[in-house]
């Protein structure tokens, strides 16, 4: 069975073949190519070393939808080839260990990003130049939502009696918006995967910012609701005759 150098991917030849590459002179990790062995695995290892992004490292196309079972299998296959434990023996120099560490940590980062749909989404958008992590002022939030959030807080201060009901209504509205927003995100991802296009990515970026705004509103509404409920409870208790005893 033909094996390939884990560093330069040239075929390993000669009597000492499994241990030192004649092309680049580097000692090979024991069982370097893993159980499947062969050129494919060695090339996979090289691909990690030369990858410009996580998708390339895993040899998959730049899409939102990924077969995570297949990615996981590839992660373990590649780990078997690249893991620093394979390079712990004295036969390998410090350079081989350094490279192994570097590649394995890149592979770990890639895997932890690709296995999470949210992280993969942000990562892919970032690669395409749509950074969702840096909100820049007012331009990026849904205005109508900001307005109704302002009006709600205004009403809560002006009319405390109906405040709790209003807040609960608003909360329900937020939840509906979250759901439809999440559905729109999935739809846009599907369209992008099947037909590509930067317009879709731009729209997706906007939806994701809406989502993060929705989340911060949900958090604030929850806080407001708790405050109102505590106030209502305290008021109720103070109205019970003899409560002070």
């Amino acid at each position, binding site marked *: 069975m033909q094996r390939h150098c884990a560093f330069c991917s040239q075929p390993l030849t000669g009597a000492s073949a499994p241990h030192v590459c004649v092309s680049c002179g580097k000692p090979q990790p024991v069982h370097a190519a893993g159980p499947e062995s062969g050129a494919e695995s060695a090339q996979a290892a090289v691909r990690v070393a030369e990858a410009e992004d996580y998708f390339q490292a895993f040899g998959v196309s730049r899409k939102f939808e990924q077969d995570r079972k297949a990615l996981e299998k590839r992660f373990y296959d590649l780990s078997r080839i690249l893991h620093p434990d394979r390079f712990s023996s004295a036969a390998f120099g410090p350079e081989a260990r350094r490279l192994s560490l570097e590649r394995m940590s890149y592979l770990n980062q890639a895997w932890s990003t690709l296995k999470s749909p949210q992280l993969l989404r942000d990562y892919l958008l970032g690669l395409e130049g749509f950074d969702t992590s840096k*909100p820049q*002022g*007012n331009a990026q*939030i849904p*205005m109508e939502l*900001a307005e109704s*959030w302002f009006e709600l807080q205004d009403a809560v201060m002006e009319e405390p009696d109906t405040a709790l009901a209003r807040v609960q209504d608003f909360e329900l509205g937020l939840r509906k918006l979250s759901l439809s927003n999440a559905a729109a995100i999935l739809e846009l991802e599907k369209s992008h995967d099947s037909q590509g296009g930067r317009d879709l990515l731009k729209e997706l970026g906007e939806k994701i910012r809406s989502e993060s705004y929705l989340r911060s509103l949900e958090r604030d509404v929850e806080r407001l609701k708790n405050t109102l409920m505590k106030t209502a409870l305290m008021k109720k208790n103070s109205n019970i005759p003899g409560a002070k005893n």
Partner: protein
Amino acid sequence: MAYTKKVIEHFENPKNIGSLDKNSLNVGTGLVGAPECGDVMKLQVEIDETTHIIKDAKFKTFGCGSAIASSSLATEWLKGKTIDQAMAIRNTDIVEELSLPPIKIHCSVLAEDAIKAAIGDYLKKNEAKKAGTEAVAVKA
């Protein structure tokens, strides 16, 4: 990080809280929200139609101390300024005046956005009436 004295001053004794008649042609209203924290800020300006000078400014903010102080300071600065001068106010001026820490810079951005939105609203309301204001909007 504790709030600076100036922030606390504005927070405890905010200037120009309230609202102006948003239906008036001389009033511009800007409502803005911070994407990262849910703070919302409404800022209004009343502008003299002949001199283009801001006669009055009011605000209402639901948010943290820095957001309240930023908008309070903004309304103080706005009064007596021309539209051009108002549009020239930068969030960095507010950061400097209130010594806001990096984590609160977005509050000053919100205030600058609110000024721009309020004046933008005024100009939009009046663009049909006054041809001259369009040049102001473009310059800004």
